[in-house]
């Protein structure tokens, strides 16, 4: 399949060269020059409207349902590609309407009336109605839902569907980021079943084939209501190992790597004119998340001490070379409520020791970090082990798989501390949920995050969240180690892909492959 795609590409290239030669013979010297110029520019703009785009990724979804703990891979493959929402978070970080054609907010901010885009069809052929929207939102807020955004939708008191094209959402309290939060809610056909293995969305692509452990193939949906994709098929190919993924791009079996995970592999692409390296903004943070419910991590002093004991800059340098950014809290610089908190509990092993003694652990203690088995977690865990040993804290490393992480930590909260990359945009709100896996529970923060939601203006919201952000950092709720860089590498012939990794979304419908 891959080999075939590559070969077809080569054949069509030589074909256009042949036509160029024929033209040249028929023209005079001057016209020849002009003709070559025109042919040249036409070729640069031309793209194969039916091309297959092969996308290489390290993030295979666990299943196909984002309310069932599928992981970041499903956002990458499905957001805006297979499923659409009422709104979407664009690659630039703005919220724009998609399936909502327009909306009105009542003066008290408690009633949102959405008018749906007309003529929208699901892949199964059913038309989109307000009932589907109600069904989809309730799917996310239901008791069984494992959506990480479930809590953000709590203010929704009721959903009414006065007619097929109108959805009225009644809120129990103001929710300024409702449109933003709705961008996480896939609109799913209300008759759809078995969504962990199949799909029925409204997006520009439908699922063609999912080979677990290998690839996810999407094909253009001809009944799509919006702008047609500039390619025919998209295949997400999953790799478990970055070197294999890099080699796949080098040999042409994939066209794009959604997110390069090692600075050392970039050199081979930067020095090569056949590839484009694009550096965008990421929202992915590496966290040492403690279980704040259990001793000794229920003690603020212990958490602060551990934060001070770790030289984050050194680890960032080890893993990312000269890429990446240090952060002092969960909020990356691209979020509106960013505050520079890198000075809070900055690296200072001496005061870390003093704080540990104050907290009642003058001789340190021992704890286990549950470490996902893929890079950079094992190396980060070893780094933490060494750093914390210097202040007398002994770390055991327990290597687990992504599946184990989801069941043991995310669901069962059965852990002391864990390393995890958090990819979501605006995910400071997770600290307002005491039932989240890390169990951070500060009533002041919960209240501030609630108030921010109830703000009438974005300025008010920003001020409240800045305050919450500062408290979370002061509490050392988790240890925010660094912010990843977002680097996309592609073959030169491929353009039109998103460069920012917000929410690890990867919109594919605008990707063009040169003819």
């Amino acid at each position: 399949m891959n080999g075939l795609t590559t070969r077809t590409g080569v054949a069509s290239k030589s074909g256009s060269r042949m036509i160029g030669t024929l033209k040249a013979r028929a023209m005079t010297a001057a016209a020849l020059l002009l003709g070559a110029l025109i042919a040249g520019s036409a070729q640069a703009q031309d793209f194969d409207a039916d091309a297959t785009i092969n996308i290489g990724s390290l993030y295979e979804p666990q299943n196909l349902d984002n309310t069932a703990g599928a992981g970041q891979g499903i956002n990458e493959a499905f957001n805006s590609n297979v499923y659409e929402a009422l709104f979407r978070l664009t690659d630039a970080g703005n919220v724009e309407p998609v399936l909502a054609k327009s909306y009105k907010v009542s003066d008290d901010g408690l009633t949102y009336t959405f008018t749906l885009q007309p003529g929208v069809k699901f892949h199964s052929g059913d038309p989109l109605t307000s009932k589907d929207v109600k069904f989809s939102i309730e799917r996310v807020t239901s008791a069984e839902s494992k959506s990480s955004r479930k809590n953000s939708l709590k203010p929704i008191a009721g959903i009414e569907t006065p007619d097929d094209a109108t959805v009225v959402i009644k809120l129990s309290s103001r929710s300024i980021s409702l449109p933003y939060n709705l961008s996480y809610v896939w609109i799913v056909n209300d008759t759809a079943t078995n969504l962990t293995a199949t799909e029925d969305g409204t997006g520009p692509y439908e699922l063609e084939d999912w080979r677990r452990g290998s690839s996810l193939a999407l094909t253009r949906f001809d009944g799509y209501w919006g702008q047609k994709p500039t390619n025919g098929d998209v295949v997400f190919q999953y790799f478990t190992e970055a070197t294999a993924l890099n080699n796949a791009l080098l040999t042409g079996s994939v066209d794009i790597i959604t997110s390069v995970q090692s600075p050392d592999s970039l050199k081979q692409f930067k020095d090569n004119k056949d590839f484009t390296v694009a550096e965008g903004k990421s929202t992915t943070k590496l966290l040492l998340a403690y279980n704040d419910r259990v001793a000794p991590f229920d003690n603020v002093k212990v958490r602060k001490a551990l934060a001070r004991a770790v030289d984050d800059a050194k680890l960032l340098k080890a893993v990312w070379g000269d890429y990446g950014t240090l952060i002092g809290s969960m909020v990356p610089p691209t979020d509106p409520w960013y505050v520079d908190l890198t000075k809070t509990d900055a690296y200072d092993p001496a005061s870390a020791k003093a704080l540990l003694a104050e907290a009642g652990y003058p001789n340190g203690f021992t704890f286990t970090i549950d470490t996902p088995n893929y890079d950079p977690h094992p190396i980060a865990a070893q780094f933490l082990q060494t750093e914390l040993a210097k202040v007398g804290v002994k770390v055991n490393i327990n290597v687990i798989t992504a599946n184990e992480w989801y069941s043991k930590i995310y669901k069962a909260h059965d852990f002391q501390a864990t390393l995890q990359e958090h990819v979501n945009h605006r995910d400071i709100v997770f600290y307002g949920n005491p039932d989240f896996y890390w169990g951070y529970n500060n009533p002041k923060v919960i209240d501030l995050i609630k108030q921010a939601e109830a703000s009438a203006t974005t300025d008010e919201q920003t001020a409240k969240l800045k305050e919450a952000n500062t408290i979370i950092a002061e509490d050392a709720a988790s240890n925010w180690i660094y912010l990843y860089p977002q680097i996309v590498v592609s073959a030169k012939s491929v353009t039109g892909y998103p460069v920012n990794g917000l929410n690890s979304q990867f919109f594919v419908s605008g990707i063009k492959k040169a003819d």
Partner: protein
Amino acid sequence: MTDTNLVAASPEGRTRRSWTFTIGAIIVGLHLVIGLSTLFWTPYDPTGMSGGRLEMPSLSHLAGTDRLGRDLFTLIMIGSRIALVVGTGAVIIGGLIGITIGLLAAFASRTLDDILAASLDILIAFPTLLLAMLIVASSDGASLGTAIVAIGIANSAIVARLTRILAKRVLRMDYITAARISGTSWLGVVAIHILPNIWPTLLVNLALQFGLAVIAEASLSYLGLGAPPPNASWGRLLQEAQGTVYTAPFGAIAPGIALVLLVIGINLLADGLRDIGDPTRRRRR
């Protein structure tokens, strides 16, 4: 005594034999010395970040440094110890289980023997590494102990089959019947007649199993199923160096060389042992 006589009678055989045995012994001995020395001394603190990121090999860092700036030579030395511990542990476990089952089969009734032999053949047909992976995966978590047990169990089938065949051959001898008639117990037969007779061949096989166990441990660690970090297993060093193999190839080459050297050394040693223990080979020369 007879051994020395025979060797003396065949000078060419002696030179060839000492060549493989000596080289093997030197390599394994070197690993042993290095491995044991890490218990008391290493050039650098194995977890300490003593250098810069991905430094090239130099006089201060003989094998360069890894991404965290740890001295790779130190880690490889510790890897040597881990490889030897796993090899020894796996051979002891595999040997104990294998020899016991093999002897049981040799002494058992026809039906039981057939069943045991068939199950051993099935086990041997099953890839060793896959079996070891299954055992590790079904245990509580990856650790050095589970890796040793898993590799030991996985390798025991071959030892069992060999023991069974060798023991059966000895059991057919007339002197066994004589020993039984003169009142020697079955355990006595095993201790006095069978084990001393089959030991040389078994030893060669166990030495080869040692080499396989070292490779199996590296493979398990490479897959993240071996000793958890910070145990510097060669397999894990290889795995960690994989992402930087183009920019800092030495991180992968150095543990690779150490692993290959040890396995070659063990195989040469086993080869030498076979020459010493196998009388037919001696007579041919």
